[in-house]
């Protein structure tokens, strides 16, 4: 990343661990120690890592449920309005609001909205796309998408203290710890 005009701001400490298990253990200790502005970085999902860092279950499923219901009601409303109000066609004397035959499109609209919101709200809640993040300045951070398991503690964390946090990470089993700014 390009150099900043001003002095780069301190981001925090980023530690690398040897394995997903080591990262998970360290995350639990970090949370127990009272650190809150923390994050893990791994090439594949490490089960329970986010929870170990103190994250609550995401609202994503609830959002998608609402989106799905909205899609279904929207599909029904569209078909009702078109078939019964805007363009009523008498087909063999059947009612204009012949809801059973609207089910396939209601279903498709539900899936469409729920599916789109699964991806877009996942990205949105994750703050992606985000082209720049200070953690990318960590040496060898390419390994976070290959075979490296990282834990970051931000300088903004109230418990953060350069020397003692570094010692804590070392004690938690970090292979290397870097001070990262950006």
């Amino acid at each position, binding site marked *: 990343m390009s150099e900043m005009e001003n002095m780069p701001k301190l981001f925090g400490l980023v530690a690398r661990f040897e394995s*997903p298990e080591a990262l998970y253990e360290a995350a639990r200790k970090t949370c127990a120690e009272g650190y809150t502005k923390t*994050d*893990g*970085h*791994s*090439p*594949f*999902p*490490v089960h329970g*890592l*986010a*929870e170990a*860092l103190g*994250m609550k279950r*995401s609202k*994503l*499923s609830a959002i*998608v449920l609402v989106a799905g219901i909205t899609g279904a009601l929207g599909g029904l409303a569209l078909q009702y309005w*078109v*078939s019964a109000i*805007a*363009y009523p*066609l008498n*087909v063999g004397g*059947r009612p204009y609001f*012949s809801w059973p*035959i*609207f089910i*396939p*499109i209601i*279903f*498709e*609209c539900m*899936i*469409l909205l*729920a*599916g*789109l919101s*699964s*991806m877009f709200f*996942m*990205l949105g*809640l*994750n703050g*992606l*796309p*985000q*082209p*720049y*993040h200070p*953690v*990318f300045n960590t040496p060898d*951070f*390419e*390994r*976070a*998408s*290959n*075979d490296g398991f*990282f834990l970051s503690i931000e300088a903004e964390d109230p418990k953060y203290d350069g020397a003692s946090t570094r010692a804590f990470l070392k004690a938690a089993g970090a292979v290397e710890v870097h001070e990262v700014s950006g």
Partner: protein
Amino acid sequence: MANEPIDRPSVLGEVSPVIAPGQTYETVGASVADVVLSGHVPKQWYIATAVGFMGVGCLMMSITWLLLNGVGVWGLNIPVAWGFAIINFVWWIGIGHAGTLISAILFLFKQQWRTAINRFAEAMTLFAVACAGMFPLLHLGRPWVFYWLMPYPNTMGLWPQFRSPLIWDVFAVTTYLIISLVFWFTGLIPDLATMRDRAKTKVARTVFGIFALGWRGSARHWHRYEIAYLLLAGLSTPLVVSVHSVVSLDFAISLVPGWHTTIFPPYFVAGAIYAGFAMVLTFMIPVRKWYNLEHIITDRHIDNMAKIMLATGLIVVYGYLTEAFFGYYSGALYEEAVMKNRYFGPYAFQYWLLIICNGIIPQLLWLRRIRMNAVILWLITLVVGVGMWLERFVIVVQSLHRDYMPSSWDMYAGTKWDWMLYIGTIGFFLFAMCIFMRWVPMISIFEIREIVHKKSQEDDN
């Protein structure tokens, strides 16, 4: 399923593992990413791409000719107004369904072996749906006003007829295409980040970097990501069933003899999966050899896919028997006539060829020796592809060419433009798959790494 891993090799004889032993996070990344990044391209890729590109040319030519002259260049007429366009539409969309089945349904069933093939199969879904979509659009006659199918306020004061399964098709196929794309791209994001981080040139790093959206493997991101992926799998599963059911309702809701049966939705869905798995194998068997990926796409994958083909093939055969039974048991003159026409009429040759292709030859898959023989298995997948095409031909043409009124009976055959358009879409599909293999990681790297991780845990215990 018990939670403790069963030592399958010792229980069932020599079943290959889901992943070859000795793989690490790094070797997995290297095997998959280097296909794209190393710059080494097998010569078969050039041949396949060239053949595909010729097919694209053929497609362009036939579309141009069609637009210049209208659908009259096809063999369509009354009574067979649904010829190749619908046959090919159903064939292609069915092929796409294997991708969603592998990526969504097998994911929900926690089938580890799906992981090495899901990305590839999902890409097939996308391109197959694109091929499928071309046919009804071109069949419109005036494809440039295709958007009239969408419900939007217009100066003509017209709205679509929501009671028609053809409009359901528009919604189902559009939704299917969009959701398949979303599912595929969501699965790709972490791998694009891997590609970005492994890329050696600035261009590759920038391009993969843009599409990776700044993914940094954050634990909080993974948490939401896994929820989203599970939701997408859960949504795609009923979607895939609904899409081919809706396609089958195009037929079943009509009153044409031979079409108006309740077996159609399940029978179509099974046929779709059958054809789709055949197509996945048609591609997978050569591709894993070209790119030396046998340690990730093992014999286990090939074996399992062949078994699924066998199972869905039997469901399809059951569908054929049910159709015959419906014809007989209905006691309706026209239904009986359609069945007699099917077995002994002018298109009986196509029907019995279909039975040989779909019903008889695939029974060879009961034999383990056949499933393990790459060449024979590959040939069987081609036979199934042909068989499933013939099935749609039989359904579309045989019912239409002799319906209620003998005075309007007629024979149907595709013209050279029908064939060229069809071959053109096959070329387009091949070309698109080659482009995908060349520039996108064709195996889900992060999911294979999860398997490596699970295996290492199992080994530790």
